[in-house]
Structure formats: structure tokens, C-alpha cells
């Protein structure tokens, strides 16, 4: 049934699409970067306002448009994350665009459209709309990767991204087709209902699980589907890389968790599902961390580091699935930890990337050795970037420490001690490579002596990100209070019936 009030539930996405169209039209008339960026940033207030209004007046999960749209605490949580990403991206890319890309309007429009797709990926409860939202997210990303038109690296990265992205969505679709064949519906709640009656040992269920994990494995850059990430991160314009590393990954996890938990796939053949995801998580952790340790280009290092971070998130997902058949409330603690981890990861990685954009813009190099002695040349940037890197490494007392602790304790309590031990060992390795950059910046002799002055937009971004990181550290319990019901809301649909 369609009602006019359904439009209110979709209002954040609708207003974001309108904003993107307005920015596109303004770009036709004025080429002034400051106008376009200001309109994008101010316009974001409208979708943010709608999301806040929906969160404040929240009374329970609501569905609309033939159950294609699901507005529960889970989707509200992710909508907030994606709007944070959009706001940070407008600020962080401002200077880089002026310097390297002569297509500011296009960059912002593509970014906003992609964010719409990400928000929809978190808030749809139906396979067809998940697929459409996924492609709405991906197409702008392909174009963004190739925006540095004079650089062969950039167009090469974009082409590789299109080819691998298209292949991964074909694999995902094949999984969807099997799911549809097994259950006769594309509605996730319908799928959850019919999975109740499935016993174990159904080969088709296992194949569908594997195909869906493989399809999303590309989006979240989990090993063995990670090959694209380092190449594309290195070749693409740095702001676009920052966007891929947080947006694409958070959206991929949003949809994967939605299908696995809300779609009730855990009700049949749980053991093979856990084994497959567990193996993927372990491989991701080991390869991501060890490969990051040997990189010399900072963008490639950040690519492997973001692969490694996906591994920690997967540990939380596996832990939830382990307990899902026995105790929903306990199991949801894993997802709550994952939600908190994703929020912290998004803020931290955006901060680290804006630091890297600023520092590599100023020094003109992307090698780690180009960052030597930056402490003497640009103290504020160096301190902020270092804080973000420390948080990524999970060193107390920054928020990244808490997010790792939550994931590890949840996984330990839910019965995956071995995964926790492996993840702990891997995060010790990660201290080495994050620490190396910090050491190079603080203790090595600078190449030149003159001071570096970062452009105002970039220093604002990184200061904001660091401030947000510190605030997150202080309000950990508040965020967890929001994450816990969000995680539980994924199980709510099954408990209700």
C-alpha cells in the first residue's frame, strides 16, 4: 500500500537527491568552487534534519513502499553515518579539487548521489532494491575514480574498478537468484519466514550464502576479493580514495548484515556460513595487516589498513551469527559492537585521510619517507593525523581502542575465542605500521626547514575529525545506547511473529 506519509520515511533520500540536482544545475551557471561547496554543505542540513526528526519521533520499526523501505533504528544509525561522511567529504575535497581536478561540480554531484545509494542500502528490506541501491552507490564511485583525466593511473584504476565491480554484482545477483528460487520471494522478511522451515544440509542454501558473501566481499574489500583495493586506492584522486575506504565499506557491511541477520539466513545451515565467514575474516586480518606493514606508498598502506579493518568488523559479524540461533539479545551485542566500530572507523579514517591529503599536497609526495619530520613543519596537522592513526591502531585512550575492545569482548563472550586471539595478534602487527608513520613524522630529520601552511578547509576538516574522535571517546556509552537497540531491531521482525 502506498500512503503519502511513506514519503516522509523516504524524505532524507529524496531531499539528498534534490540537493544533488540543485548542485548540478548551479554548476552549469557558476564555476566558482566556493559557491558549489557551500550549497552542498548547507543543503546537507535538510536530510540531516529529516533523519533527526525521524530519530526523535521514533516509535518502532516502520516499513513503506511494499516493504522495500525499512526505517528502523539500524537504518537510522547508518543514515547518520553516511550523512557524516558526506559532510566531511565536501570539506576534505575542497582544496584538492581546485588543485588537481577541474570538475568540482561533478565530483560533488557524484558524491551526493553515491551517498543516496549508501543510505538506501542500509534501509531497504528487499533484494531488488538492495541491488538497485548497490549500483546507485557504485556507478558514481567508478566515475569518481577516473576523474583525474590527465592521469593514466586514474583511468586505469577506474576501469579496473568497473570491471571488478560489475563482476562482483553479477556474482551477488546469482546468489539473489538462488535465494529467490529457494524461498519464492524477494522480500527479506518473507525470506526469513521461509528459512524457518529449512533444515540443515541444503546445498543450495550454502551456495547462495557463499555467492552473497563473495559479492559483498568485493564491496567491503575482504580477502580473497580485495585485489582491486590497493590499485584503485593508489590510482584514484585521494579524496575519492577516502570516500571509497569509508563509504563503500560501511554500505557493504550495512547491506550484508541486513541480509544475513534481518533476512534470517542464519536459520538454516549456520555452521557452513560461520566457517566461510570465519575463514574470510581470518584471511582478511592476516593479509591486510602483514601487507600493510611492507608498503612504501602511504595510499597503498591505507588501502591494506582498510582491508585489515574490514577483518575486525567481520569478526563481530561472525560472533553474532554464532549465537544467533540461541539468544537474540546476546547475539545483537556483536552487531552493536560492529556498528560502534564502523562509526569510529568512518570518523578516524576520514581524519587520517584528510591529514594525508593535506600533508601530501604540501610535500608533493605520497611516499612514507616524504612525511619525514613533519612535526617541525606543521605541528597541528601532524598531531591530528597521529591521533587518528593511533585510533586506527587501537591504542588507548582513543575511541579506536574502545571499538576494538567491544568487538573482541563480544566475540569472546559469543563463543569465538580463536578469532579474538588471531585478531589481537594482528592488531599488534598493525601498531608497527601505524607507528612507523608516526615515528617518521615526529622523530626523523625534516628534508626542508620551511613551515607548511595547510589550506583552511583541510585544517578545519582534520581538526573536526579529531575533535569528533575525542568526543566519541568521551560519549562511548551514549553511542552504545543508540547502537544496542539498532542491533536488536534487526532481530525484532522475527521475534514479532
Amino acid at each position, binding site marked *: 500500500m502506498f500512503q503519502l506519509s511513506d514519503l516522509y520515511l523516504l524524505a532524507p533520500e529524496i531531499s539528498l537527491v534534490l540537493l544533488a540536482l540543485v548542485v548540478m544545475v548551479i554548476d552549469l551557471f557558476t564555476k566558482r568552487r566556493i559557491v558549489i561547496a557551500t550549497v552542498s554543505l548547507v543543503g546537507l542540513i535538510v536530510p540531516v534534519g529529516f533523519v533527526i526528526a525521524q530519530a526523535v519521533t521514533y516509535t518502532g520499526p516502520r516499513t513503506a513502499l511494499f516493504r522495500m523501505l525499512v526505517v528502523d533504528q539500524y537504518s537510522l544509525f547508518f543514515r547518520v553515518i553516511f550523512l557524516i561522511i558526506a559532510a566531511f567529504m565536501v570539506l576534505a575535497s575542497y582544496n584538492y579539487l581546485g588543485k588537481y581536478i577541474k570538475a568540482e561540480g561533478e565530483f560533488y554531484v557524484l558524491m551526493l548521489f553515491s551517498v543516496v545509494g549508501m543510505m538506501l542500502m542500509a534501509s531497504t528490506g528487499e533484494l*531488488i532494491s538492495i541491488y538497485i541501491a548497490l*549500483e546507485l552507490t557504485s556507478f558514481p564511485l*567508478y566515475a569518481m575514480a577516473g576523474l583525474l583525466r590527465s592521469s593514466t*593511473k586514474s583511468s586505469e584504476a*577506474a576501469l579496473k574498478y*568497473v570491471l571488478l565491480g560489475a563482476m562482483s554484482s553479477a556474482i551477488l545477483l546469482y546468489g539473489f*537468484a538462488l535465494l529467490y528460487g529457494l524461498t519464492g520471494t524477494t522480500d527479506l522478511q518473507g525470506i526469513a519466514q521461509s528459512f524457518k522451515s529449512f533444515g540443515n544440509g541444503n546445498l543450495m542454501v550454502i551456495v547462495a550464502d557463499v555467492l552473497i558473501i563473495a559479492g559483498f566481499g568485493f564491496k567491503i574489500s575482504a580477502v580473497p576479493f580485495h585485489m582491486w583495493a590497493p*590499485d584503485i586506492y593508489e590510482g584514484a584522486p585521494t579524496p575519492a580514495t577516502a570516500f571509497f575506504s569509508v563509504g563503500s565499506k560501511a554500505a557493504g557491511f550495512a547491506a550484508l548484515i541486513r541480509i544475513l541477520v534481518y533476512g534470517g539466513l542464519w536459520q538454516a545451515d549456520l555452521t557452513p556460513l560461520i566457517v566461510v565467514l570465519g575463514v574470510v575474516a581470518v584471511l582478511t586480518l592476516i593479509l591486510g595487516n602483514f601487507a600493510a606493514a611492507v608498503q612504501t606508498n602511504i595510499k597503498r598502506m591505507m588501502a591494506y589498513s582498510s582491508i585489515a579493518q574490514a577483518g575486525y568488523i567481520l569478526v563481530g559479524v561472525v560472533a553474532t551469527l554464532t549465537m544467533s540461533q540461541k539468544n537474540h539479545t546476546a547475539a545483537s551485542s556483536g552487531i552493536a559492537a560492529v556498528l560502534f566500530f564502523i562509526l569510529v572507523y568512518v570518523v578516524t579514517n576520514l581524519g587520517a585521510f584528510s591529514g594525508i591529503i593535506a600533508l601530501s599536497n604540501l610535500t608533493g609526495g605520497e611516499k612514507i619517507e616524504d612525511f619525514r619530520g613533519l612535526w617541525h613543519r606543521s605541528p597541528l596537522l601532524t598531531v591530528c593525523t597521529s591521533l587518528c592513526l593511533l585510533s586506527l591502531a587501537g591504542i588507548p585512550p582513543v575511541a579506536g581502542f574502545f571499538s576494538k575492545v567491544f568487538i573482541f569482548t563480544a566475540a569472546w563472550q559469543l563463543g569465538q575465542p580463536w578469532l579474538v586471539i588471531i585478531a589481537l595478534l594482528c592488531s599488534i602487527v598493525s601498531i608497527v605500521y601505524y607507528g612507523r608513520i608516526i615515528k617518521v613524522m615526529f622523530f626523523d630529520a625534516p628534508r626542508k626547514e620551511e613551515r607548511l601552511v595547510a589550506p583552511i578547509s583541510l585544517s578545519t576538516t582534520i581538526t573536526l575529525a579529531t575533535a569528533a574522535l575525542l568526543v566519541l571517546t568521551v560519549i562511548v556509552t551514549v553511542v552504545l545506547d543508540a547502537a544496542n537497540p539498532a542491533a536488536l531491531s534487526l532481530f525484532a521482525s522475527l521475534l514479532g511473529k
Partner: protein
Amino acid sequence: MPLTAYLIVSAVIFTIGVIGVLIRRNPLIIFMSIELMLNAVNLSFVALSHFLDSVDGQMFVFLVLTVAAAEVVVGLALIVSIFRTRHNIDVDEMNVLRG
């Protein structure tokens, strides 16, 4: 014909597509292979839709076709832009970025 026959044909076409993506080096051929994979999926959707007597699968096929067309547009635009700068589109020659 039984449903299994359709699903087997679809699985075979899908596998041919995957092999094509993995071993062919020309981006255009790779696109064709991806198209093969998508059409294999479409075949199973249509077959399943008919046998389940539900129209959802056919809806899915329409949307997959449309999205696939858009995907090729983005890809071809990038191929054109690469060809303009280096007059060669073989993916093996694309080694500015190491894998």
C-alpha cells in the same frame, strides 16, 4: 522441460562468463563475459519466476537489464578516455599500477 534443465544451463553460462573474465585480456571481451554472467542470472530468474508462479523474478530481470546497460556506458566511456591517452586498451599493458 524441468526446472533443473534451465538452472543447469544458467550455471554453465555463468561459469563460462566467470572464466572469460578471468582469462581474457581485452576489456571489451571482459565486458561481454560479464554480460554473459548477468544473462545467466536473468535466465534463472525467469525460469524460477515461471515455476514459482511469482512475478518478482521477472521484475528483477527488467531492472538487471537496465542497470547492466548503464554499467556498460560507464565502462565504455572509461575505455574511450584510456584509449585517447595511450592508444591501447589491453589490460596486461595496464601496469602503471602493480596488482
